[in-house]
Every structure is written in structure tokens, then in C-alpha cells.
């Protein structure tokens, strides 16, 4: 499957003959940064009229390859070819001059400028005296043609993230780009916006443009691309036609080993009756929070029963973070109550919440979750306040067991937490927070913020497994995340927040993606805008 070794194999993948021309290629390019080979003899071929996905986990080298292809970086070894000819691109400007345009993960826009001003900024083809009306007309025309509605006179500072992305795309199209590199474009979009982006991408390829689509989300890769090149650790691990592959095969290429069957959301453990009778393990009633004069939580009612996973979703900044802080006792609500296993812990701080049986895994793992300077064993001991004298030996044994069973990569139990990678830190945190679950001594409810964010597939898989087990053992699990896919794949029941209110609630299986997306955008199904 390694394209470098068997170029003949991958050449057989089907693609329409008319679109066979290689528009842009990387030939054995290598790019080194201090201490890391970000691209290691990478081969990549993009044909006119195709959507070619670059798939890989965080740090696989996707953005680096894109930067080499657009002229932002120069390869240490190997070369770039445009239309079959070797080229040296010394700057993004030279890339653009050859019709290669990149849309970065982090937008490059001048906030105070209008859309039109941003679009022509640095464009050498503009006359010395700018003709505003012409520019605005062309921006509008491009928007029309590719389904990218933008108001050329609007100031960028007043635009939403999705609109800013459209401006970035219009910007490269305006310069006549024939090849577009989109670096993780859907990471910041709602499902509807992502769908619109895919339509735009198809409109571009229909005109014979070629698109490199960078992603680590398997679902959208399968949906949008013609071919996929998979990267891992700076190398290409495979190139396949989307039609001839499956999400599972791609996942294996990404991780480099077979993946166990995906953790299934079974029916809630113990049947619905049991849990409900026992009463909720975690409950919020009419929680309101006013911060700096802003109402950030506006009357939230929420209950998590033993043996179920509830997921809280929403676009960033709609109250998820604040809700987690209130439930965990870190922030006292302005009004309303929080109960853990029937005990009122409102205003009692994190100590009261933990005492009543709540475990909390924060989003900020190294810092809020673990103390970076302390050893793993000491971090394990942090939340054990029951004994006066700490039992270090027992804790060390416990940690050693966790390291073994969770495959935590660390030099040992006495290593400082700071050396852990994100995935390993998350495993340590879960090991600590879930310890004793189901024995009566352990937690009754657990809140996990962005459980798999930034983790590679292997670690994410294990974290999912741990949360699944926690549910099986009768734990009440609440997941709070900005990543909709994450919530949908883990939760039995979902709650969507919009401007500090519950905009939608229901069993995950019964909610359509469209409903969820509309709720995230604050649009009610009838088309009315939710109050706020």
C-alpha cells in the first residue's frame, strides 16, 4: 500500500480519463524541522478535476506538505511539479502566480478591511489605482459561480467564522487559482456550512479545478473525495481511490495497524427502568449564570441517570465550558441547583461535588487536570483525600497497573506528568477519576470535557472504550464537547446548547444531523430564530 514502493499499483485506481492530467505533484519531498522530519520522501499527485484528500492524524505532516505545495515552505529534498514541469516556488505569491492557492487552518485576513480589500490585498495584477466597483462586481460574480455568498463591502470583523472561510476561498479564486489547498476547512463549520462547502468544492472541480482537501475526519473524506492519500509520521502510507476503499481501511492506514471493531453505543445498560428509578446521578435544575453582565447560562435543566451517556454539543462559546465549570462545582451558579447522587452541592465548590461522588476530567488536561511538575503517582494521589497519611506504595501499584492496562507510554510511575503526550495524559486522568467505579467507593457520575480532542485514533479508541465501560458499570457519564462527531459517537442522549439554553434534546439515534445543525445555529425547525 505504500505508494512509494509500488507506484504501479496505485496508478490503476479508477479516475475519469479526461481528468487524468497531473496538475500538481510532490516528488519525494523531504522537509525537516528541528528534531522532526515533518515530511519524509513524500510522493503526492493531484489530477485536474479531482478532489484529493490528505488524511492523517494530528502531526502526520499534512499541513507541511500543503505548505510545500503552495510555496510557503521549500523542500529540503525532492521537488514540486506543476503541470508536469519541475518548479521552484519561493513564496506563496509565486505559488499563486502559478495558479496554486492555499486556505490556511488559521485564516489570514485583515479584520478592519472590507471583504473586497482583503481579496485584492497584495494582488500584483491590480492597477495602481484600485477600481472598487470592478473588484466588488468580480467578488460577487465568483461568489455566485461557486456558491460562496459574501458581501464584498462587509468588514471582515463583522463576519462569522464560516463567512470568513468563504472570503479566503474567494481570495484565491479571484487570483485565478486552478489548484486549491484547503487545510482542515470543516474544523470550524457547522454541519450545514460543511455541506455548503462540499457543494462549492464540487462546483470547482466541475470547472476542472483540482482541490486538495485536508482532513482527519473519515466520514467527510468518504463523502467528498475522489482519491485519498494517507499520511502517518511524515510518510505516505497509502494512496487509494475512495470508491475502492472503506472508512475502516483508511483508519488502518492512518493508525498503521488493524482497528478493533468500533465501540458501539449499545442500548443503555441495565434497561431504562433501573436507572430512572434510582434517580439521576447528576442533575442541574434551572441553572443560570451571569458573568460580566452577560447571561452565559440561561435556565439549564439536565439530568444524567446511572448507566447512560449524555452528550452536550454546540458551537464554541454557547455555554458548554461554563456549564462544565458549574456542574463540577468550580463556578457557583447565579441561581438554580446542582445535585450529585441526590445531594445538593450548589455553591459547595469542587470539594462538595467530589465528596458527593462526582468525577471531572477537564478539557485542559495538563494544567487543570494533572499537575505537570508532579509525578504520575503524586497526581494519582491528588484526589484521594480520605486518608490522613498517603499510601504511596498502594498508589504506585495502582498507577503501575493503569500504565499496563491502558498502554500508557511513560518512562515510569515517577515520571513527571509534563512529559506525557495528550493521549497518555488523558488515560492517566481517566484512570484516576474512574478508579473504584461500581464498587461503591468510586464516583457515581463523571463529567468529561472533549474526551478525545487531539488524541490519535488509537488513544481515542481506548478512551471511548473506558467511557463505555464506565457506563456498563452503572456510571452516569456526561460528555461536553464542541466536536459534534465526538458527541454523536459516544452519547445515548444529546443536548444541544445555543446561547446558554438547551436548544434541542433527545436520544442520539432519533435526532437527524440536520436538526442538530439547525439547533447549533440557533434556528428552530420552523425557521424562526431561537430567542437569545
Amino acid at each position, binding site marked *: 500500500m505504500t505508494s512509494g514502493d509500488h507506484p504501479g499499483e496505485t496508478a490503476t485506481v479508477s479516475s475519469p480519463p479526461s481528468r487524468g492530467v497531473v496538475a500538481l505533484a510532490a516528488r519525494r519531498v523531504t522537509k525537516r524541522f528541528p528534531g522532526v522530519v515533518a515530511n519524509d520522501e513524500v510522493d503526492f499527485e493531484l489530477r485536474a478535476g479531482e478532489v484529493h484528500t490528505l488524511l492523517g492524524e494530528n502531526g502526520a505532516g499534512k499541513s507541511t506538505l500543503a505548505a510545500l505545495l503552495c510555496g510557503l515552505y521549500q523542500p529540503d529534498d525532492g521537488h514540486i511539479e506543476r503541470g508536469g514541469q519541475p518548479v521552484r516556488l519561493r513564496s*506563496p505569491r509565486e505559488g*499563486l502566480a502559478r495558479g496554486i492557492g492555499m486556505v490556511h487552518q488559521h485564516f*489570514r485576513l*485583515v*479584520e478592519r*478591511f472590507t471583504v473586497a480589500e482583503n481579496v*485584492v*490585498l497584495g494582488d500584483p495584477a*491590480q492597477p*495602481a489605482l484600485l477600481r472598487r466597483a470592478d473588484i466588488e462586481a468580480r467578488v460577487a460574480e465568483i461568489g455566485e459561480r461557486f456558491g460562496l455568498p459574501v458581501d464584498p463591502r462587509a468588514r471582515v470583523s463583522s463576519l462569522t467564522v464560516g463567512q470568513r472561510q468563504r472570503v479566503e476561498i474567494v481570495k484565491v479564486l479571484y487570483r485565478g487559482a486552478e489548484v486549491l489547498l484547503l487545510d482542515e476547512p470543516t474544523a470550524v463549520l457547522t454541519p450545514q456550512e460543511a455541506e455548503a462547502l462540499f457543494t462549492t468544492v464540487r462546483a470547482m472541480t466541475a470547472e476542472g479545478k483540482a482541490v486538495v482537501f485536508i482532513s482527519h475526519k473519515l466520514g467527510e473524506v468518504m463523502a467528498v473525495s475522489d482519491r485519498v492519500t494517507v499520511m502517518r509520521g511524515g510518510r505516505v502510507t497509502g494512496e487509494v481511490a475512495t470508491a475502492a476503499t472503506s472508512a475502516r481501511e483508511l483508519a488502518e492506514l492512518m493508525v498503521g495497524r488493524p482497528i478493533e471493531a468500533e465501540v458501539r453505543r449499545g442500548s443503555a445498560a441495565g434497561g431504562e427502568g433501573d436507572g430512572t428509578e434510582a434517580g439521576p446521578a447528576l442533575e442541574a435544575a434551572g441553572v443560570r449564570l451571569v458573568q460580566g453582565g452577560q447571561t452565559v447560562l440561561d435556565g439549564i435543566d439536565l439530568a444524567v441517570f446511572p448507566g447512560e451517556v449524555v452528550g452536550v454539543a454546540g458551537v464554541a462559546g454557547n455555554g458548554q465550558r461554563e456549564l462544565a465549570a458549574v456542574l463540577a462545582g468550580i463556578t457557583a451558579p447565579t441561581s438554580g441547583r446542582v445535585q450529585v447522587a441526590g445531594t445538593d452541592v450548589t455553591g459547595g465548590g469542587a470539594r462538595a461535588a467530589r465528596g458527593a461522588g462526582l468525577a471531572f476530567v477537564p478539557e485542559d488536561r495538563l494544567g487543570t487536570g494533572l499537575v505537570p511538575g508532579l509525578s504520575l503517582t503524586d497526581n494519582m494521589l491528588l484526589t484521594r483525600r480520605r486518608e490522613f497519611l498517603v499510601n504511596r506504595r498502594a498508589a504506585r501499584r495502582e498507577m503501575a497497573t493503569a500504565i499496563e492496562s491502558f498502554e500508557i507510554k511513560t518512562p515510569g510511575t515517577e515520571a513527571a506528568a509534563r512529559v506525557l503526550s495528550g493521549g497518555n495524559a488523558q488515560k492517566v486522568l481517566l484512570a484516576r477519576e474512574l478508579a473504584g467505579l461500581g464498587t461503591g467507593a468510586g464516583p457515581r457520575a463523571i463529567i468529561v470535557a472533549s474526551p478525545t480532542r487531539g488524541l490519535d485514533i488509537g488513544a481515542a479508541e481506548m478512551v471511548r472504550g473506558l467511557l463505555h465501560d464506565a457506563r456498563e458499570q452503572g456510571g452516569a457519564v456526561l460528555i461536553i464537547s464542541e466536536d459534534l462527531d465526538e458527541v454523536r459517537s459516544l452519547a445515548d442522549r444529546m443536548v444541544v446548547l445555543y446561547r446558554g439554553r438547551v436548544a434541542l434534546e433527545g436520544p442520539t439515534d432519533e435526532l437527524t444531523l440536520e436538526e442538530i445543525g439547525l439547533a447549533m445555529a440557533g434556528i428552530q425547525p420552523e425557521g424562526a430564530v431561537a430567542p437569545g
Partner: protein
Amino acid sequence: MNDGAFVALLAASVVAGVPIALAALGELLAERSGVLNLGVEGMMLIGAVVAFQVGNSSGSLWLSLVVGALAGGALALVHAVLTVTLRASQIVSGLSLTIFGTGLATFVGKSIEGLPLATDFRAVAWGPLADLPVVGPVLFEQDPIVYATVVLAVAITWYLRRTRAGLSLRSVGESPATADSMGIAVARLRYLHVVIGGVLAGAAGAYLVLGQVPSWSQDGTTSGLGWIALALVVFASWEPMRVLLGAFLFGFSRQLNFYLQAKGVDVPAELLSMLPYLLTIAVLVVWGSRDLRRRVGAPAALGLPYVRDER
């Protein structure tokens, strides 16, 4: 309203506003590129003393003006090297420039303290227009530098708003990272506009000795005009036409003193000499608050060195 003294006051206000306008327009260009230069006072002094020396020995007005302006530009070049290339603090570098400029001007000017200059800019009358009541003397009987200043303010407005180069300049002051990624030479534009700013400050200083008070005196020549120019850029929200208007208002307030004295109203001179410093304090208050700065329209990257981040 029609009394001769008042018309003379208005005409003198315009002349008094010119050096402030020139220096402030120069500072505006530098700041629009993202570089704050607190050395305006120093650059004006150097421009003044150099212009005086050249005028004294050559007798040529225009040569004096040009050499004075270049002296200001040279000082600004030092600021550009320190802040753009070496990424030193713009505040510290600018203040040093003022201290250095003041010291050097005192030193060079010792021998000429109080001497008069034989040559100065003369007003040119616009034929019959100059005979119009009030507007004639105020608008149509001024020296060439006055008209050049007005033209300059209009030209800068047009440059910033309408030209491709002006758009690039503004982007460098707003978001150098974005400008850089769009292929705009951030450092080159910053150098260019800082030096032009210095040239205009030098010209402003030169005009003080060539057009207004044809003599050199350490305390009397600039007397804080550089600081007023700096403040004016902020109060004018970085807009050239507002700078021009503000400069004439300041010119008026300075001349008003003499007018009132002539009318027998006594205003303490100390009050007037406090003005630049009061304004500077007001500006520093604005400067200290991110929020205020944004609201008054400061270029977003003003004061920040640009380091290209590879990531």
C-alpha cells in the same frame, strides 16, 4: 470681525499650523505602517538647526529646506533599523531619538543661538484673489510651503484610500502576518514610511526657522511642537484631513495668545507651554488601554515588532 488684527491672527494661525501638520502627517504615515516614532521632537530640532546652518552659509532657502528634511530622515532611519530590523522597543527607541536630537541640536546650535537668518519663505499673492477681504490674506497670500502642506494631506488621503500601495501599507499596520503571507514586503514598507515620516518632521523643523521665526533658539524653536504633532495623530484618528484641520486649530490657539495680549487680555505663558505635555498625557491614557486604542482607530499592529512565525 473685520478688524485687521483678527485677519492677521487667522493668517498667522495657518502659518503656525503648517509645521505641526507636516510633522503629524509624517508620523501618521509611520504609524499607519505600524511603527510608533516618539522621536518627532528630536527630528524636528535636528531639521531646524541643520536648515539654519545651511541657510546661514549658503543663503539658499530650498537647499536649507531639503537638507533639513534629509537630516530628519537620517534620524528616522536609525529608528527604523532599531525597531524594524533589530526589533527594539519602539517607545524606548523613539524617546532616545528625541533625547539625542535635542542634545545634538543644542550642541550644534550653540554658536548660532539668537542669530537671525537672512533669508526666509515669503508669501506669494494670488493676484486679485489676495485682495478679497479676510479670505484673501488668509487663503491666497501665503508662502509655497503652506500650499504644499495642504496638497500633501489630500495626496496622503488619496494614497491610503484609493491606491494599491496604500492598501498594502494599511495592511502592514493592521496585520503584518497577513500582509506577509500575501507577498507584501513588510519590512520594506515600514522602513520607507518611517523614513518619509522623518523627512517630513525634518521639513517641519526647517520650516520653523525658514518660514516662521527666522532665527534659532534652543527653547523657542520647537517648544514641544513635536509632542503636539504626536498627540494630533491620535486625536485625528489617523486620518490626514483631520490632522490638517487639527493642526490649523492648534496654530490658532498658539497665535491667539499674542492677539489677546495685543488686546490687553493677559494669558499666562505657562499655561500655553503646558499644552504639549497635557496632550501627551491624554494620548498616553488612550495608548494604555487596548480597548480605547481600538475605538479611536489605531492601526491594530501599531507598536508591535513583526517576527515571521513559520508555523
